[in-house]
């Protein structure tokens, strides 16, 4: 099956960086590479599901991928006239052959440069339903609204001969890490249903929930709270074993008057210090209007062993935050306390300082929360009349966040619809790319766009890393808001300007490989962006550059490579300091080719040659 690393390899062979970054849409910033890859993989997924229901002559997986990838490349590259399209066809034939297609197959596939069956819905090679599925795959990239899908499906019903429905699944709790954890669990359930039931199921991530295309009249997912205890990995544990041991010891100590007295004094025995026991954590929690032991509450909700008796009660305010998803083993109740982080009324909660138990000396800054209250007021509120406790969901959020060593996250926020499976593949690619760049000096990163007659010395390294990405950094995908986030950088002391340089170069590489819009922030972003890079340190013209801009979008490959080459801009004149180099970010995007020409004449020449070969320039 041509998916995952193999699909990514073929896709980059056909559209290498930095041409990969050419924008594909005006209504949202999405790269041509990401658009084409998504259509190709969506087409494959739809064909696979369709084949479960109907016997039909359908393309092989490799062929489907290539058709989907190529379908509107000429149009998106804005090639005018037959000579340019012929040049693109020649390029694609060469690259398809390099991707293990026979020369006959390459010739047949590259002709889709001239015809777009996703629009015409006809081509003699396959029956009309096949092209209708390609049409759906393409149209899904034309909207951010899941409610547009039913219209597409009803338009397709005549051609496909089956009625497909939309089931919208959504979780809108305000805790993004917990939402990502639940996304993993929902995806696991959907995968199980696909295999067990044999139903047509394609889950599509949108900014407004998970749209599931299915032939079943109704589709719902049941989640068990025990799944949350497992953490991101199936059969794993959310709280590390050693931490859980400490929680258990402290909980028992709280409930044993002798131990409580022993550990509650000013001079604590070493064992109490070792387990990080705090008297206030025993007394200041709340569980269903009674004094709650914070350690017990943490174990009850998130302990792997599930040995604590008690009901899992969540704030009433989130009862309606689950659409199409049934939470098993959970009750909802109103409470008289308020969570200072999410603002919900809660019947259960832990004292605010209890979160320190999970973070140790590492403090969680207010910016790392998706908070509702003003950051400097949190501490004050916590002291005010004991009205405030951290609710169990924010506690879970803190437990997940505490396990990420990096202070910053680098996120991809998508608006165009994308199947969840594809989003996970893109997350792996992004993780692999970041891992490959990591630790390299900014100046050496330029080679991340090279390929054989120019690009790809590091190509195989990145592609090979995709399969291993689960061993690399963990990445979070929020299926319900179409956001991918990867822990990015520790809060080190290298100085702001060097950090900027690293951020520019990293996002330049990602953009050159077609992965944008990127957000660098301390938490998972809550709304999609359309900028090449949204930054936590203010905005400047070049990095608030919008690839979807009609007039300037065409400069995206240059802007991406100029951002990568920012570190070499001062290579030749050592007198220039870093602020002067960063000043180039104030220049208008029209000058990005010039910046690249200056920063790296070789790279400029390479970009121009690539554009020439693909027919983009005359």
């Amino acid at each position, binding site marked *: 099956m041509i998916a995952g690393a193999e699909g990514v390899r073929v896709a980059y062979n056909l559209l290498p960086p930095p041409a990969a970054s050419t924008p594909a849409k005006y209504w949202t910033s999405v790269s041509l590479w990401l658009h084409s890859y998504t259509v190709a993989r969506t087409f494959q997924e739809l064909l696979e599901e369709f084949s479960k229901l109907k016997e039909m002559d359908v393309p092989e997986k490799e062929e489907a991928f290539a058709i989907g990838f190529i379908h509107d490349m000429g149009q998106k590259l804005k090639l005018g006239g037959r000579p340019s399209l012929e040049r693109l066809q020649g390029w694609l034939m060469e690259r398809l052959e390099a991707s293990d297609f026979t020369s006959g197959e390459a010739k047949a596939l590259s002709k889709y440069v001239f015809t777009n069956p996703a629009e015409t819905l006809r081509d003699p090679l396959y029956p009309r339903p096949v092209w209708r599925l390609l049409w759906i795959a393409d149209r899904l990239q034309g909207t951010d609204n899941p409610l547009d899908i039913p219209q597409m499906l009803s338009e397709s019903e005549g051609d496909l001969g089956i009625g497909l429905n939309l089931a919208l699944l959504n979780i809108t709790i305000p805790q993004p890490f917990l939402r990502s954890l639940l996304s993993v669990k929902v995806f696991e359930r959907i995968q199980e249903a696909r295999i067990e039931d044999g139903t047509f199921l394609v889950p599509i991530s949108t900014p407004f929930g998970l749209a599931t295309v299915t032939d079943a009249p109704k589709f719902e997912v049941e989640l068990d709270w025990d799944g949350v205890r497992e953490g991101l990995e199936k059969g794993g544990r959310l709280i590390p074993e050693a931490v859980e041991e400490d929680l258990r010891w402290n909980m028992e100590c709280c409930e044993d008057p002798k131990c409580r007295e022993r550990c509650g004094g000013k001079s604590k025995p070493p064992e109490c210090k070792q387990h990080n026991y705090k008297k206030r954590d025993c007394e200041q929690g709340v569980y269903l209007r009674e004094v709650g032991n914070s350690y017990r509450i943490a174990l009850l909700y998130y302990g792997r062993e599930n040995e604590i008796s008690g009901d899992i009660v969540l704030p009433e305010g989130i009862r309606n935050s689950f659409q199409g998803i049934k939470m098993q083993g959970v009750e909802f109740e109103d409470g008289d306390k308020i969570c200072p982080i999410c603002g919900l009324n809660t019947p259960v909660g832990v004292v605010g300082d209890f979160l320190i138990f999970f973070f140790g000396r590492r403090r969680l800054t207010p910016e790392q929360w998706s908070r509702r209250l003003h950051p400097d007021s949190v501490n004050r509120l916590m002291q005010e009349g004991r009205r405030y406790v951290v609710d169990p969901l924010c506690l879970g959020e803190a437990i997940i966040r505490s396990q990420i060593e990096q202070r910053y996250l680098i996120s991809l926020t998508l608006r165009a619809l994308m199947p969840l499976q594809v989003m996970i593949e893109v997350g792996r690619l992004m993780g692999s790319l970041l891992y490959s760049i990591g630790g390299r000096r900014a100046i050496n990163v330029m080679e991340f766009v090279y390929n054989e007659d120019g690009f790809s010395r590091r190509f195989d390294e990145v592609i090979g890393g995709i399969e291993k990405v689960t061993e690399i950094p963990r990445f979070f995908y929020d299926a319900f808001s179409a956001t991918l986030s990867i822990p990015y950088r520790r809060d080190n002391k290298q100085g702001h300007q060097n950090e900027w340089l690293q951020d520019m170069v990293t996002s330049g590489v990602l953009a050159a490989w077609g992965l944008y819009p990127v957000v660098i922030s301390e938490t998972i972003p809550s709304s999609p962006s359309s900028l090449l890079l949204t930054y936590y340190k203010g905005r400047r013209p070049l990095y608030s550059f919008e690839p979807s801009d009609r007039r300037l979008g065409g400069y995206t490959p240059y802007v991406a490579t100029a951002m990568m080459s920012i570190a070499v801009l001062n290579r030749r004149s050592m007198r220039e300091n870093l602020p002067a180099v960063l000043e180039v970010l104030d220049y208008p995007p029209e000058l990005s080719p010039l910046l690249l020409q200056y920063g790296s004449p070789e790279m*400029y*020449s390479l970009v121009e*040659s690539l554009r020439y070969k693909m027919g983009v320039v005359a």
Partner: protein
Amino acid sequence: MNGLELCRYQPDRGVDYYAGCLAGLLKVAVGPHRESTHAYVKEVRKAMETLVFSIWDNSDEFIRVVAEANIPSTLQSGRARECFKELLIGLLKKFRETTDNIPIGSRIRLMNMVISAIAEMARRGTVPPEGQNVLSNIFSSKKSDVEGGE
């Protein structure tokens, strides 16, 4: 497209286009691998400095004159000289357009970057495809010139 058409100013061509093509011509005029980059860009530098420091507010009137006055003497072919002049006009005009709204300090810095980029491309021989295209058109045989060139 006629050889000289490739050299003339067109609004949709960026600064990088003219810089790349000028680098191609200078590579031929000066020859590759000189120790100093000054030899490659002394005329371009003079023209750009005149634009930025002397004629910025009246550039429309003077750009052509400045370009005519700064054609390298090592470039002997009439067509090549004409092409160089047109490219230089294009570079000056486009530079004037794109950097009109940025501070003077940044403009001077950008000017130095343009000059440095041209010198580096000419010296290292990393001339982009558009520069190669201009070269092959300008130095093509007289026959094709008579026929209108290609």
